[in-house]
């Protein structure tokens, strides 16, 4: 993340040290000190919503995440209309409109908040809202790219080129299904719960690009006791880093080639496509890429009344969901950036020709044009910081009545990292028995 977000470092340290109320306060102080610009308000809303969720301030969390959702809807629409060729120097100049995975989990965390507040109906509303967003995701960026191209063609400096937006192959979220399965079962709607269980299985079968791990055993009813549903959030969702690219045009072949520096400093092709080019030039630009944040959590286990009850299983790798949804957005960003790069590159080429007065002065002028053109295409690295990286779940058949529950997080090397305990947790025969724990390391 860019250095202007350096104020996050101590807050993240507080989060990792489980000082959650302090982290909430630190984030508020950062906002009061204007560390977030208005353009970055969505990041504040998501992070404030997440920190308040971890701190069990569920109502405040819902307020913040609702503001995040509203801001995301508003700002994406605005970003489509504002991202035209002539109006934006680079994406950092736009209001941050959020990533799809950020908005999706905004709804799912709100569903957890409502469940904690024992408001099942509103929890289900949030899951429906999440499903609705997934339904629209398939064509979201293709539509946005079409609007961009149509509007940009009105600009004489626009060079049309053929590059398709990647389609999103993610329309069914397994964790959302697991949660709604339990919410329906808690209200005695077993048909709806069964449908969600089937949808959960389908999510794994039909989306191996996102769910490339074993389907967890899930259950919402048993003749032998009540169901205790446990959810554990581990690690943090990915960050963004710069992917530096170079654009090379070939006017004889009418070809644009995009390259990046490979591991052995050889230039590797990222993409190529035909475009009507009048000039040969070489141009540096950057787009954002997602980078996973390391999490040391290797396993999560439940003990009931001091006895091991079993291990929780991975149901959602947020990193993979993020990557699948971000790749479509990235190709839309790529199209916009290339269009701007081609237009700016052409303009810079013409400027350089004018500046080429010979001698040192002429060389310096050409260098200044190169630097200005390169600097104006920085990648937009903004993202929220506190969404979870992985989600584990476990459904356990438990006798009704009070139980002492302990959720243990173990490192990848098998060391006990943290425990969350629930003394005298009342397991109900009919109702939602949902327990949540997290370790963000």
């Amino acid at each position, binding site marked *: 993340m860019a250095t202007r977000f350096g104020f996050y470092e101590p807050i993240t340290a507080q989060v990792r040290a489980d000082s959650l109320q302090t982290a909430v306060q630190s984030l508020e102080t950062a906002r009061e000190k204007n560390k977030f610009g208005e353009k970055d308000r969505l990041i504040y809303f998501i992070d404030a919503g997440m920190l308040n969720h971890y701190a069990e301030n569920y109502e405040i969390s819902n307020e913040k995440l609702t503001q995040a959702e509203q801001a995301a809807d508003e700002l994406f629409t605005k970003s489509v209309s504002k991202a035209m060729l002539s109006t934006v120097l680079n994406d950092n100049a736009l209001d941050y409109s959020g990533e799809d995975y950020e908005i999706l989990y905004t709804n799912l965390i709100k569903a957890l908040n409502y469940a904690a507040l024992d408001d099942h*109906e509103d929890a289900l509303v949030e899951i429906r809202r999440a499903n609705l967003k997934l339904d629209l995701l398939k064509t979201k960026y293709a*539509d946005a790219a079409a609007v961009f191209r149509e509007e940009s063609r009105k600009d004489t400096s626009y060079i049309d080129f053929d590059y398709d937006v990647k389609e999103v192959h993610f329309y069914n979220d397994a964790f959302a299904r697991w949660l709604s399965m339990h919410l329906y079962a808690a209200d005695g709607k077993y048909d709806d719960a069964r449908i969600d269980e089937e949808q959960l299985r389908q999510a794994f079968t039909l989306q191996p690009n996102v769910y490339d791990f074993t389907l967890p055993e899930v259950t919402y009813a048993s003749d032998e006791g009540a169901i205790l549903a446990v959810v554990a959030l581990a690690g943090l969702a990915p960050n963004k880093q710069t992917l530096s690219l170079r654009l090379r045009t070939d006017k004889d072949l009418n070809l644009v080639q995009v390259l990046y520096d490979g591991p052995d400093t050889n230039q590797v092709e990222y993409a190529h496509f035909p475009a009507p080019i009048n000039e040969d030039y070489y141009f540096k630009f950057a787009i954002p890429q997602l980078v996973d944040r390391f999490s040391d959590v290797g396993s999560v286990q439940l003990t009931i009344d001091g006895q091991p009850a079993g291990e929780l299983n991975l149901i959602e790798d947020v990193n993979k969901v993020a990557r699948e949804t971000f790749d479509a957005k990235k190709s839309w960003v790529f199209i916009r950036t290339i269009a701007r790069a081609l237009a700016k590159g052409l303009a810079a080429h013409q400027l350089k020709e004018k500046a080429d007065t010979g001698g040192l002065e002429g060389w310096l002028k050409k260098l200044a044009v190169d630097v200005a053109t390169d600097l104006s295409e920085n990648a937009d690295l903004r993202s929220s910081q506190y969404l979870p990286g992985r989600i584990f779940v476990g459904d356990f058949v438990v006798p009704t009545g009070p139980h002492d529950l302990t959720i243990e997080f173990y490192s990848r090397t098998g060391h006990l990292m943290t425990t969350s305990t629930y003394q005298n947790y009342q397991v109900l025969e009919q109702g939602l028995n949902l327990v949540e724990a997290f370790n963000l390391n």
Partner: protein
Amino acid sequence: MRLLLTGLIVIALIGGCGGGKTVTRLDTDSVTDLSGQWNDTDSRLVAEEMISDCLNRPWYTDYMQAKADKPVVTVGTIHNESSEHINTGTFIADFERELINSGKVRFVAAKEQRSEIREERQEQQEFASRETAKKLREETGADFILQGSIKTITDQEEGKHVTFYQTDLELINIESMEKVWIGTKKIKKGISQGKTKW
């Protein structure tokens, strides 16, 4: 002197006009639709239309002919099965108002209110005077219960989000479990995004 006086008046006027936000009171019957989401106007209009439909169906005349008395109705749960946070409490209140004001039915309080009132009556048996304490087991039992749900379907039309709100209501005979009326009302609304506050 006149100049000074004029100046003071101008300052007073400016001072009087500045600062504070303006609150405009709107007629509660006026149609205001700021976000395109479900609002009080939708709730009121749906209640008016559906209750009017309900009370003009054959079940009503059949009951009147058979019993020679107005049916007693209560409102049960209206489930929110939509993708919006809808206050079903105000929606239920709109149905109750329409039923009572129609003058065609007698109406008993809903379940939650009944519990509170029963508690009050129970306490009266112990703490109120014999003359003023209200009797137990004298409640009017409802003949019918109104239950329902509200659902949404969201779609895109020409690049804009459109939401269909569907309210389904059923009137059920409490004794026989017979469904005597089923009504559906659909509303279609376009959604626009307002600016989030910062």
